[in-house]
């Protein structure tokens, strides 16, 4: 371990900037966005410096720690606020600050007409600070602070245009779904503390080797619940679609590239728990598999371009979660997909934002069409992101997704074959819905609104898109060449150096199968969407109807949780009114009676005060007398 004194700046700089912009208010309107962008960029530069510094160190010394202060010290409960920068967290630091900076730049232009642009940037910096704290905390409790911080930032940004009630409601929905997950995280922390007496990663790791299977499974299940809430995994996924109410850069940064992947980070960071508990691992795999299909199916039926992309995010994170459930070998591939996904999905979202910017904030893809001629740069960058998510070689997604499919097949037995088929199927559906988005938006005939005057976006917007497109093209190859990322992460996630030496199917076969499935998906979409009606047709298959309604997740939640919950609260209110308030009123009545008696005693006459004291003394003497007799 290397002791560092610089880690605190990762969090302090953006936090300071956020506080400054919020405190100064309108005074900072002129320069707030520039300032916030510079802060984000400098965090990225510090990250790059730290990365090279880390590379030059060897072995154990690569991880750096910094103790900030003694946070809680009550009896045997000792928690220090400390930071940990190791091979895993540096990946996140670079992704968060790098993509974050690009999105700051993009937002300068995207939000230029908004009179609250400064507040928007203050929230963005707040998010960066909280997210970095999340990945840099050296204990579950510090992580928890960041975890709540990103939840807050996400809530503020989804509801940024809170003058629209629907947007405010979406923010609330995200907040509530996240709270359910957060309960999981806090329970996991409490169980860990009762079991191991500490909540630091190092301490829990040490304790986990000797812990009972039941405790580990309980912690694992609670961590999974937390991850599901934050990463929009089944059954807590319903909020992500509504979260698209926020400004598009927010969707790109928080709800595609970074925050929603915090669940993957949590599980990867807790690898020592999941590796020791096969039951918890199985749960992770199941949740990942369900979500990857679930999200992909929803994606096929959405006409709102952002919601289609959100469904895709859900599905892609499903891939990552599934990979983390596949044991030591899977973590590195999950992180690899996380990084490549960070590039191409952020690029896709920014592209969608660029389209909306040119189309008067129209989000319905049925009103798009033939936009590639008027928005060539957007079409090109979006297209590169599209090829990356499909997994076409040599684009980024090919390397990361194929590895996950391979690992799924290799995980052994019937389970392995089943998971392999699910991941292949998911790849096919992904190809279908992404081609649908592509075709509806950029090719075909014009179906624009009369008032629409689409135009290419300004430089400040397309430059970040171009940068992300470069990432979508090259990141997969770079991370995979010579197993760079796998070797880099090995000390953190795969200490025993477990690798699949035997493959169920040769990698080349898997790749060919995947490409075949993708080709089929693309072909179906191209044929099906040669003509596109402006109004969504009603006579469609049941599955499409279901997918349009998010596979009835909201109705399910309403029927199972909300209505009984409302009944319960109504009942509780009634009980509260009749029983509790009744009791309180009774107590109040008694208090009033006794208070008026007290008032008689407290009459202001010194002689009665003196008398009370004498009576008190007599009572004391009598009492002591009785006790000693």
């Amino acid at each position, binding site marked *: 371990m290397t002791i560092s004194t610089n880690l605190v700046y990762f969090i302090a700089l953006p936090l300071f900037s956020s506080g400054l912009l919020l405190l100064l208010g309108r005074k900072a309107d002129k320069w707030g966005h520039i300032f916030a962008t510079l802060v984000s960029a400098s965090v990225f530069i510090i990250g790059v410096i730290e990365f090279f510094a880390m590379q030059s160190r060897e072995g154990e010394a690569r991880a750096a720690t910094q103790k900030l202060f*003694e946070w809680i*010290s009550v009896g045997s409960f000792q928690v220090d606020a400390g930071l940990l920068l190791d091979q895993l967290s540096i990946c996140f630091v670079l992704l968060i600050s790098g993509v974050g900076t690009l999105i700051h730049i993009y937002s300068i232009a995207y939000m230029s007409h908004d009179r609250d642009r400064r507040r928007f940037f203050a929230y963005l910096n707040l998010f960066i600070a909280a997210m970095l704290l999340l990945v840099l905390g050296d204990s579950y409790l510090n992580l928890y602070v960041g975890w709540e911080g990103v939840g807050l930032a996400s809530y503020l940004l989804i509801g940024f245009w809170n003058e629209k009630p629907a947007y405010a409601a979406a923010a609330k929905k995200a907040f509530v779904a996240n709270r359910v997950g957060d309960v999981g995280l806090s329970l996991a922390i409490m169980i860990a503390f009762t079991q191991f007496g500490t909540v630091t990663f190092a301490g829990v790791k040490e304790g986990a080797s000797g812990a009972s299977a039941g405790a580990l499974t309980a912690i694992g299940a609670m961590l999974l619940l937390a991850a599901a809430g934050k990463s929009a995994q089944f059954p807590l996924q319903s909020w992500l679609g509504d979260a698209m109410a926020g400004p598009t850069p927010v969707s790109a940064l928080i709800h595609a590239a970074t925050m929603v992947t915090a669940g993957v980070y949590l599980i990867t960071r807790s690898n020592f728990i999941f590796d020791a508990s096969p039951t918890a691992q199985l749960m992770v795999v199941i949740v990942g598999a369900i979500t990857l299909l679930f999200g992909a199916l929803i994606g096929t039926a959405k006409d709102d371009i952002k919601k289609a992309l959100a469904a895709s995010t859900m599905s892609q994170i499903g891939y990552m979660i599934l990979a983390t459930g596949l044991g030591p070998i899977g973590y590195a591939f999950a992180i690899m997909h996380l990084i490549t996904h960070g590039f191409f999905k952020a690029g896709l979202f920014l592209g969608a934002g660029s389209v909306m910017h040119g189309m008067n904030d129209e989000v319905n893809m049925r009103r798009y069409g033939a936009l590639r001629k008027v928005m060539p740069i957007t079409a090109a960058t979006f297209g590169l992101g599209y090829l990356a998510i499909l997994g076409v070689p040599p684009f980024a997604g090919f390397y990361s997704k194929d590895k996950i499919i391979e690992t799924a097949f290799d995980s052994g037995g019937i389970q392995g074959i089943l998971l392999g088929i699910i991941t292949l199927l998911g790849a096919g559906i992904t190809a279908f819905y992404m081609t649908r988005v592509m075709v509806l938006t950029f090719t075909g005939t014009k179906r624009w609104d009369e008032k629409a005057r689409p135009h290419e976006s300004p430089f400040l917007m397309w430059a970040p898109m171009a940068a992300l497109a470069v990432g979508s093209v090259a990141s997969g190859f770079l991370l995979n060449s010579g197993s760079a990322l796998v070797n880099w992460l090995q000390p953190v996630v795969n200490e025993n150096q477990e690798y699949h030496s035997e493959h169920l199917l040769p990698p080349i076969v898997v790749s060919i199968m995947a490409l075949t499935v993708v080709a089929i998906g693309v072909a179906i979409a191209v044929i099906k969407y040669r003509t596109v009606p402006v109004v969504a047709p009603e006579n469609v298959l049941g599955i499409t109807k279901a997918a349009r309604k998010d596979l009835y997740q909201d109705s399910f939640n309403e029927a199972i949780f909300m209505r009984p919950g409302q009944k319960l609260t109504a009942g509780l209110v009634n009980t509260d009114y009749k029983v509790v308030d009744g009791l309180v009123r009774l107590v109040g009545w008694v*208090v009033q009676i006794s*208070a008026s008696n007290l*008032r008689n005693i407290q009459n*202001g006459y010194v002689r009665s005060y003196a008398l*009370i*004291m004498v009576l008190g003394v007599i009572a*004391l*003497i009598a009492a002591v007398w009785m006790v000693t007799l």
Partner: protein
Amino acid sequence: MLSAPNLDYELLAPIMIILGGALIGVLIEAFAKPAWRARLQLVISLAAIVISFNQLVRVRNDGSSIAAVTSVSVDGAGMFLQGAILIFAFLGILVIADQDNFAPQASALPGSAEEAAAIQAGKQQTEVFPLTMFAVAGMMLFPVATDYITLFVALEVLSLPLYLMAGLSRRRRLLSQEAALKYFLLGAYSSAFFLFGAALLYGYSGTISLNGLTDAIRGNTGNDVFLLLGIIFLSVGLLFKVGAVPFHSWKPDVYQGAPTPITGFMAAATKAAAFGATLRIFYLGLDAAQTSWKPFIAVISVITMIVGSLAAISQRDMKRMLAYSSIAHAGFVLTAIVSLSENALSASLFYLFAYGVATIGAFAIITIVRDSAGEVSDVNRWIGLGKKSPLVASVFSLFLLSFAGIPLTSGFVGKFSIFSAAYESGNIMLVVVGVLSSAIAVFFYLRVILMLFFTDATNDSISVVIPSILTRISISISAIFTIILGIAPSLLFDIAQDFAYFLR
């Protein structure tokens, strides 16, 4: 041939510096020009406090010990409370310096022509400074005294100036004078109990020192009736000072009647001093007889917590409400006496400091909320203050939250540590009652906060006067202490743990 006793002046120096400051203050009253007095008095008082504190730190560094032929024991707990009292005095004097709160001529009959003339002439009552300093000296002696005579002298030295100060209010003069007289009569009455108890204990043990008392109890040499009656009477004198039920009746009247800066100072410093002496007597002198006093102190603690919390609910006057809250807090600290452990001692030291600072701050804020006729202490007239003066209302709410023991304020840490010490020593009933009455207390504190922020104002006549810079400093320091001790309690808690011992 009598030889002069060695008094260890360096150990007594902190007290003597304060007395010196008080004497200089008297001379200033006699010889300085009226226009200069207030400023000179302020400088002298603050300087004496700072020098005294500095001397106290030096005493601490030299190590604690027994002084004045075993009459005084400058030990950990004693020094901690002396330091706390000095800080309270510093904060208190900053508020007292706002002369607007004091009668121009206390001896004039309320409403008389003489008084009107004094107001007209712009007279100022600067005797309050030396009086405060005399009281501070007594308060510093009280928690370190180890025999009945010294204890009694300290008790009187601290009480007599307070009786006078209670009558100095500029507004509602009659109420103030009535409070002073009541306080004096009842205080004298309780002093008599204290003295009577001391006499009985002397009769029991044949010595006036607490150490001798312990030896006598251990040796079981005396008559138990003397011991028990002695303990009860001595306790009555102490319980009166801390304001435990049923010896509390003076508190609401005096707190309401006294000038508000004096109330704040008195509530913080007197309580620390009185509890210091109480803790010493029960921890040091009477721990060998704990089976006989623990039950009745426990019962008094329970009654005090309940009555204090319940009665506070029905109060319509801010100062009376805080008086009852102070009674309830006395009940909480009494649980620490019943716990009789080192943890309980350090917890109560922390508690007394945290409570005292917040109390001075809260009363200082009451002094600046005024209408045309002066200070407004009617709770209902504070409605909507949060809209008019958000900062003042927020800081006041902070102090109330600390009284209520809400996390992230010093009050929470104090309550938590005092209850956990009680729990450790097995007094679970006390903890249950304590938590329940805290819950009741939260109700009336929050009700005030609701009124400040969430109820629409019905009248516009009150306003917050811009406080003098001194009052502002006092309030700010109190608020900063309250927050810092809530967020990083270990800063003070470690000190309290180091200081939590009595020297025989």
